[in-house]
């Protein structure tokens, strides 16, 4: 009896799959499932894209200058000199 990997099992491991944290064996099994299942392939791709978009958007984000100015003013780092 061959154990067939189902979509439900795939979803349970999808996060670790995307992070590349699964054993080679399990990974190969999932790859095989992906090559045969359009739905799961779409889920993986859109999941990766979701993470990407959030990460990329944040990468370009800096503290506004006025916020930083007020931060240093409030901290008054000199007072922590021992």
């Amino acid at each position, binding site marked *: 009896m061959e154990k067939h990997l189902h*979509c439900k099992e795939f*979803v*349970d491991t*999808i*996060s*670790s799959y*995307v*992070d590349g*944290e699964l054993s080679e064996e399990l990974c190969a099994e999932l790859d095989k499932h992906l090559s045969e299942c359009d*739905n799961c392939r*779409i*889920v993986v*791709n*859109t*999941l990766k*894209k*979701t*993470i990407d*978009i*959030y*990460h*990329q*958007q*944040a*990468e370009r*984000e*800096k*503290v506004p200058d006025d*916020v*930083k100015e*007020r*931060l*240093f003013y*409030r*901290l008054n*780092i*000199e007072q*922590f*000199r*021992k």
Partner: protein
Amino acid sequence: MINEESEPLNLKKLQSGDTEELTKMVQQYSDPIYRVALRMLNDQAEAEDVLQETFIKALRSLENFEGRSNLSTWLYRIAVNESLMVIRKRKPEISIKQDDAGDEENEGISVSQIVDWCCLPESEFLTNETRGVLADAIQKLPENLRTVFILRDIEGLSIIETAQALELTETNVKTRLLRARMKLREELSVYFGERLTEY
């Protein structure tokens, strides 16, 4: 997402109150701390308060920092806790309850949106409208999932670092991460799926 090229900080100098070193620490970490606070709260004024409180707390307690985790992990932890305190002070109806599903189970993961929107032009992902949608989707996450997603996927901490910053087990981080990611994927699929029909 700490700038990799930034020089490592000297902990001894920091702990002895070396103003130059302390300034360097604030310079290096103010961007990530502000980003985390903004993602947690979606409010610029509150995020600014958290930014200030985080560094005030950090400067006051640097002496007691034992170096069991990275300095960055420690700072992230203070920022997350400060943000959670702000959320608790808000009116109860605004704050979202913790995710009810237990950490050990993957119950409640729904996959209803099967639309391949990856092929949309990159410019679609950079619009102000998209920015708002991303922010709203994060706000809909329960706090225990939001913190994990912000540290791991937005700031790029490892699973272990995220676990240390949030004082969770690695298994809990992974379980929450899966739920957070899948919820956000659903939300974005609804939005981008609609955008797709315009092409």
